[in-house]
């Protein structure tokens, strides 16, 4: 029997640089219009976004380095920072797990009530955070539906850590799920089916196939979810009770300081939050710049 041979085809390696990332516009608009548009948007960005951010840092440093250090190391501030980190450390992983589960269910299965579930996931985005907080007070507060039962059993939710966590989870839930759903839907289930026919257990399919396939979207979602979890004000303000050193998160702490005319201290703590925002932004940009092609490719498939 003769050996079958195949023509040796040149492999077409993915050429990342071949395609221009931003198509140059050569429309009917003249250079004047172009310049005008760019100037307007730049001016707006500078005035409304960058200037406030810079002023936060300027104000924070207005009284010098020692005052700054003092403001962010005094016990109430440290307690607020720790509480914020703790709340995020619980709320974010929770939303990651539930978000993956919800995205998985929506993307890979057909069931009645699917559209309702998709709308529900968006609910926290469409509802004012204050209302989200009030709902929990209504449910778990001393005068709430479950209040007497909780009190009888010695469980504290409102004006305590559990309330903060619940409110934060509610407000930040959509971030992970919303990043994952379109990506998973676009991917379909063929990779998973292939893995199953190759004999992989459902567990292995999830960790070896599904998760790696969406890792960038997931990372993205976690980044945004975390930024919001640490920065959330409205919902948390309602359920916190603002007990200093106990239920005061960083955003709440900033507000209290500011209301007490301790502007420099307020801006010092605020500068930490602003720093977090910048780090998030930087990571996000880095991700897009470094892995932009991979992310786009993963989403295209």
């Amino acid at each position, binding site marked *: 029997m003769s*050996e079958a041979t195949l023509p040796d085809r040149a492999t*077409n390696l993915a050429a990342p640089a071949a395609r221009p990332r931003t198509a140059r516009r050569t429309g009917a608009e003249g250079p004047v219009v172009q310049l005008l548009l760019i100037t307007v948007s730049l001016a707006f960005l500078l005035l409304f976004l960058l200037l406030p951010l810079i002023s936060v840092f300027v104000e924070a440093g207005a009284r010098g380095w020692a005052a700054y250090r003092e403001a962010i190391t005094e016990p109430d501030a440290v307690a607020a920072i720790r509480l914020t980190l703790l709340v995020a450390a619980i709320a974010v992983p929770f939303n990651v797990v539930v978000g993956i589960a919800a995205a998985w269910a929506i993307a890979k299965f057909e069931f009645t009530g699917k559209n309702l579930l998709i709308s529900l996931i968006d609910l926290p985005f469409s509802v004012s955070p204050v209302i989200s907080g009030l709902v929990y007070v209504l449910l778990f507060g001393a005068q709430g539906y479950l209040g007497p039962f909780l009190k009888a059993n010695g469980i504290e939710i409102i004006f305590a850590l559990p309330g903060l966590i619940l409110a934060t989870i509610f407000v930040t839930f959509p971030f992970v799920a919303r990043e994952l759903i379109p990506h998973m839907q676009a991917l379909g289930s063929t990779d998973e089916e292939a893995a199953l026919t190759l004999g*992989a257990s459902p567990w292995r399919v999830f960790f070896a196939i599904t998760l790696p396939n969406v890792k960038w979207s997931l990372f993205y979602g976690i980044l945004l979810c975390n930024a919001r979890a640490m920065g959330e004000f409205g919902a948390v303000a309602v359920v916190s009770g603002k007990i200093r050193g106990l239920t005061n998160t960083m955003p709440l702490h900033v507000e209290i300081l500011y209301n007490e005319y301790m502007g420099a201290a307020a801006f010092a703590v605020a500068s930490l939050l602003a720093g977090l925002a910048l780090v998030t932004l930087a990571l996000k940009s880095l991700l897009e710049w470094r892995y932009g092609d991979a992310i786009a490719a993963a989403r295209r498939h």
Partner: protein
Amino acid sequence: MSVAVTIEAIDKRFLAFQALRNVSLDIQPGELVALLGPSGSGKTTLLRLIAGLEQADAGRVLFGDDDTRDLSLRDRRIGFVFQHYALFKTMTVAENIAFGLRSRPRAERPDGAEITRRVKALLELVQLPDLERRYPSQLSGGQRQRVALARALAIEPQVLLLDEPFGALDAKIRKDLRAWLRDLHSRTGHTTVFVTHDQEEALELADRVAILHEGKLEQVGTPDDVYDHPATPFVCEFLGEANRLPVKIVGSQAFLGDRPVLGGLTQNQSGPAALYVRPHHLKFVDETPLSIPGVVEQLRRTGALRRAEIAVAGLTKRLDLDLTSQVAPAIGERVRVKITHATAFATA
């Protein structure tokens, strides 16, 4: 290693849509069967049912004597090559191929060195040595196809299922891969079912061809069988071009109008019928008996052959005729053509 596959009276519906109707098919161990049908005829659905990725509403699939409903996906030991390859894009070629082996329960899992050895052997088998470290996105379509096949073969499957394996490739590579797959099959001897909508591919490659149409199996047979003796008008038209002549059959003769055009019909089916004649089963003749007069209207080239289109009085469509000799008639020339082979189907 190879096992017989028996498909028994399968029904499958998606909501109100009946995707498969009472499909039965026996596949011998080591046989290469092509599932042929137009898009949407249920080929993929049937393949997924054999694999266990879809559950039948009625009927069952046997591997040897085992009812597959009692087997887990892993125990079915299916080598499935998906239509768009479904290579794991976050893994290298080597990791893709090793995936099945690494997914085995610890007790049956080969050790690292053994896996590396097998991956190498498989890459050689599919003629892609030295591509271990590439990612799927760095491969050409034909290479991806062969990696997908290597990955499926790695689990030492009992049955190999290929869904339009060459569907996304260009014509030249398709032809090369055809010969290669045929050769690979004769070496490895897996019971193989492959799906295609390309009749040429099915006829050239398969031991037997099963033709699906709107969820029903129209005919199963060897390529010669189904090509020369199509069981239904659909099979006849799907397997290749054919002229359709409305005739009346009286005794053993077919009449076009009141002119006899074909004799020696064996089926006793007097009455109106459709006569299907392939372009190469028409030839120019001089003598009059059983011939059809017409005028050459058009000359075309179809690949290797040249084709004449002949207008015949009483027929709305021109007859297509493949020219076998270099001598071609002129356009406008009056000719006589004779049918050398045809299949008749009674029409109501």
